[in-house]
Structure formats: structure tokens, C-alpha cells
């Protein structure tokens, strides 16, 4: 990968608030057209990182470039190429969905059609409803619509589907996939690991201000973390075995000719791997503090 392909490039990013260190040397790149998911527990530094890249916060040290520009000094020309979906806001919403989108479309030199966007976020029936009369999930869809109305090259999605029902979430994923297919680069933070697995090409996991793992979604945690589990019940006791050869283990259980109780082969989900990584990190930190 060359730097010219990197839409976002972050090197040794640090952010401190007084004595508190929110980000402690984070390094990653996001390539053109890629969807990168930033995962991590609350307070881990995800939002600080994303807000530095959006230009909302200044960094303490380290390098950051977004679309070839330092986000701390990006001007209006730069902002015209970004789409930002913030965590939910509490605006008064005294305009209709269509009025709001039409107004914001005017800010951008090459905006999308308002009708198309309203359809894409599934708000056709609410187009002439005041935003303050919408439900939480519907308001969130307006936020997403405002984020993409300007045809951004880079889209920031900070916990975009909070408050969505399962059906809306799936519709939203479809929308993001269509943006991806048009070549939009996306930086996503989410608490839903299935969402990261569905949409992300690569992911980084932040905990305690540090990037504890980064890679293709299907590589996170390394080989070790993906070793399947064989689980069954024997003499009333739940047994499990981690093995790279689950078939052989299952076959060996069959020696008595009797079907093992509650037999299952479990491949760790992204969520299992994520939780494993975060708890390992926390355990290591506790050890450090003790020592």
C-alpha cells in the first residue's frame, strides 16, 4: 500500500486531557474505498480518535492526515468532501425531513438528489413530517441522510444504528453497502459486532487508549482466538475442548457408539474474539498496575 491510497493516515496519535490520557499512540491507515470499523468499550478512546479526524478536536501529538489534509486545519473545501454522522443530537427539529435535506444539500457542490436520499433511508412517508415528530430511529436515519447528502468521499459513522429495530438495521446495512460499491470510504464505530462483521473490511480494536489489534475482520485475534470449541455433556457435566481438529474430537466421542449429549461445535464469533481481546488487555493492565 502506498500513502497515496491512504484516505486516512494516523501515526502515533496521542491525546491527553490534563492528566488523563485518552489516546496513547494509535497508528492506522484507511485505504480508499475501504470500510474500517473502530471497535472498543465505552471510554476507550474511539470517539476521541474519530473526533480528531473529523476536525472537532485537536491532537496532543502525532500525525494525522484525512484526504491529504491535516484535520486540525481543514477548511471548507475539505469539509465539502466529508460526511459526518455524529452520535445522536438533540436539535429542535422544526423543519420537515425534506426541508432539512434540501437545505443541507445546498451546502455541497455536488450533492445527491434529495428524493433519492429520502428513499434510500426509507423515509418517503415521513418526508413532509417535522423532524421533532419522528421517532428516535427515524431521526437517526435523517442524521445518516444528512451525512451522505453531499456525496462524501469519506464518511464517518459514529454509532449510526443506535436505536434502530432489526429490520431498519438491515436496511441501513444495505444502504452502506451501496455507498461502498460507489467507492465511498467509511470509518465506522459501533457497539454491534455483527454490524462491524457485516460492513467492515478491516477493524481496529481500541482499549485504554491503545490499538490492541488491527486487521481484516476475519483475522482479528489471530489464529489462536479462532480455534473452534467442541462442547458436550458427559455424566451431567458440561465439557469443552478447544481444538483445530473438531471432527476428530467428535469422532473420538463416538467410540462408545452412543450419541454425546448436547454436542456442538462452536466457531468463535467476532464478538467472542473481541471480548477475549479486551479482557486480555484489561488483565494485562491490572498486572502492570500491581507490578
Amino acid at each position, binding site marked *: 500500500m502506498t*500513502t*497515496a491510497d491512504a484516505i486516512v493516515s494516523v501515526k502515533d496519535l496521542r491525546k491527553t*486531557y490534563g492528566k488523563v490520557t485518552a489516546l496513547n499512540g494509535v497508528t492506522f491507515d484507511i485505504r480508499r474505498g475501504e470500510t474500517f470499523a473502530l471497535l472498543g468499550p465505552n471510554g476507550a478512546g474511539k470517539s476521541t480518535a474519530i473526533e480528531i479526524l*473529523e*476536525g*472537532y*478536536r*485537536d491532537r496532543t501529538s502525532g500525525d494525522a492526515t484525512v*484526504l*491529504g*489534509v491535516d484535520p486540525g486545519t481543514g477548511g*471548507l*473545501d*475539505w*469539509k*465539502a*468532501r*466529508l460526511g*459526518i454522522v*455524529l452520535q445522536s*443530537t*438533540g*436539535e*429542535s427539529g*422544526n*423543519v420537515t425531513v425534506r*426541508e432539512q435535506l434540501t*437545505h*443541507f444539500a*445546498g*451546502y*455541497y*457542490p455536488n450533492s445527491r438528489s434529495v428524493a433519492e436520499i429520502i428513499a434510500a433511508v426509507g423515509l418517503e412517508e415521513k418526508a413532509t413530517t*417535522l423532524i421533532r415528530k419522528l421517532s428516535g430511529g427515524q431521526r437517526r436515519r435523517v442524521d445518516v441522510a*444528512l451525512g451522505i447528502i*453531499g456525496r462524501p468521499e469519506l464518511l464517518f459513522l459514529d454509532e449510526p444504528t443506535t436505536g434502530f429495530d432489526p429490520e431498519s438495521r438491515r436496511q441501513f446495512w444495505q444502504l452502506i453497502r451501496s455507498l461502498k460499491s460507489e467507492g465511498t470510504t467509511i470509518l465506522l464505530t459501533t457497539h454491534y459486532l455483527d454490524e462491524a462483521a457485516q460492513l467492515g473490511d478491516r477493524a481496529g480494536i481500541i482499549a485504554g487508549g491503545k490499538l490492541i489489534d488491527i486487521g481484516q475482520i476475519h483475522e482479528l485475534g489471530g489464529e489462536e482466538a479462532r480455534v473452534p470449541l467442541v462442547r458436550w455433556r458427559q455424566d451431567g457435566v458440561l465439557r469443552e475442548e478447544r481444538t483445530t481438529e473438531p471432527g476428530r474430537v467428535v469422532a473420538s466421542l463416538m467410540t462408545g457408539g452412543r450419541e454425546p449429549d448436547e454436542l456442538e461445535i462452536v466457531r468463535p464469533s467476532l464478538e467472542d474474539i473481541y471480548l477475549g481481546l479486551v479482557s486480555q488487555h484489561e488483565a494485562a493492565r491490572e498486572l502492570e498496575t500491581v507490578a
Partner: protein
Amino acid sequence: MSTTTIPRLPAGRTLRLGASRIRYEVKTYFRQGDSVFFTFLFPLVMLTIFSVAFSEQTFGQDPDGNDVSAASFYLPAMLAAGLLLSGLQNMAIDIAGEKSDGTLKRFAGTPLPVLSYFIGKIGQVLVTGILQAALLLAVAAIAFRVPLPAEPERWFTFAWVFLLGVITSAVLGIALSGLPRSGKSATAVIIPIALVLQFISGVYLGFAQLPEWLQNFASIFPLKWMAQGMRAVFLPSNYESVEVGGSWDLANVALVTGIWFVLGLVVCRLTFRWIRKDS
């Protein structure tokens, strides 16, 4: 790296977006029930109360010996109050609210120029201020039979006092919007300021009846001068002798208000930010 050249945004968009903001602001203003009542209709409500409450009293006589009614006497004061409410009070509360509810944070992430936002706010104050003044004048003339001046020079004075006053008041409102710590405390911080100014500047109480030290203090602020300018337009010419110094002193109306306008602009330029970066 030279692969990405950032396309320049077209010129003239600051003004175009400013015009678009004015439409948006005016539309949302009238959909906000509480602001319509407390800033837009408030001077009209007060004029009605004064006119009805003091309907049996007279407030002096014009040079032809006709009695001056309460409505006539309070009309210029309520026009001045309207300038302060539509501008300063409305702007300061409105923007403090937008700061804390995330509206400004959203703008910060879009290519909307700050200047377009200001044009939208000042335009909104101008439009609502004109409608408010027109409504006050219409109700005063039709319902309370206030004789309106016939001389063109008086209307000329009205035009410049009004325009200078409304724009200064709007700019000061933007400047003051940084004062409240949150949107919730904005009304509690701003309304007392506006109210005290109205009481000491000759809006509710006759300015000539205030003690001299208070008159001197109030003369620092622009509202006293705006109210004086409005009296020069609407009160009979024999009332000029009641003024401090026996004169409408329009030169100082322009000067003091103008100084506050410039001061407000400087404060806006120095202190206004979409967001506080590290709060």
C-alpha cells in the same frame, strides 16, 4: 503526494447560503411557539396592557392642545423594546440553545461558512423585526387610534434608527450568546439583562423621571438611545424639551448605537466558535 487536488468551492456561495439560511431561520422562528410569543408578540401585548390600564390618563398634550394617550406615549418605547427582544434577547437565547443541542456541532462538520450563518441570523432578526414593527404600528393606528407622523423626515429618522438598532441588537445578541454556560440557563441569564436594560432605558419608566446617576449609567448602553430615537419619531415636538439636555440628540443616537454595533462585531469575530474544541 500530489494525487488529490482539493476542488475549490464556487465563489459567491457565502451570500447564496446566507440567503438560504435567512429563509430557513425565518421559517423555523415562526414554528417555535415560545419565541413567537415572548419576543415577537411581547411588545404588542405590553402596548395593549399599557393602553388599556392607563386609558383614563393623559400623558401631556401636543402643541395643538390634543391629549396624548397612553398608546401614543408607549408606542415608541415598545418599538424600542421590540428591537431589543427580536435582536439581543432572541439571538442570544437561540444561539446558546443551538450550541448546546448540537446544531452548531453539525454545522461545524459541513462546508457552511460562519458568515453565512451570521447573515441568516441577522436576516431573521431583520425580517421578524420589520414584521413586528409593522404589526405594532398597525395595531396602534387602527385599534388605539395613535396619530402617526405625516412628515417624511420623521419616517426617514424611523428607518435609520430602526435599521441601525435592529442590526446592532442582533450583533450584540450573537456576541452575548457565549455568556450562558448551557442552553438551559440561557433564558435565566439573558432575560434579566434585557429586562433591567428596559427598565433603566426609558422603555417602561419615563427616562426623565430616573435619578441622574441612573440616567448616566443607562446612557452607556444602546437601548436608551434607540428609545430616544423612537421618541423623536413618534412623540409631538414639544416633548423634546423633556429629554435630558432638552434635545432628541439624534447625532448621539447614531454615534452610541454605531459604537455598540462595531463593538459587537469585534466580540463576535473574536469569540464565536462553532464548538469549543476541548470541552
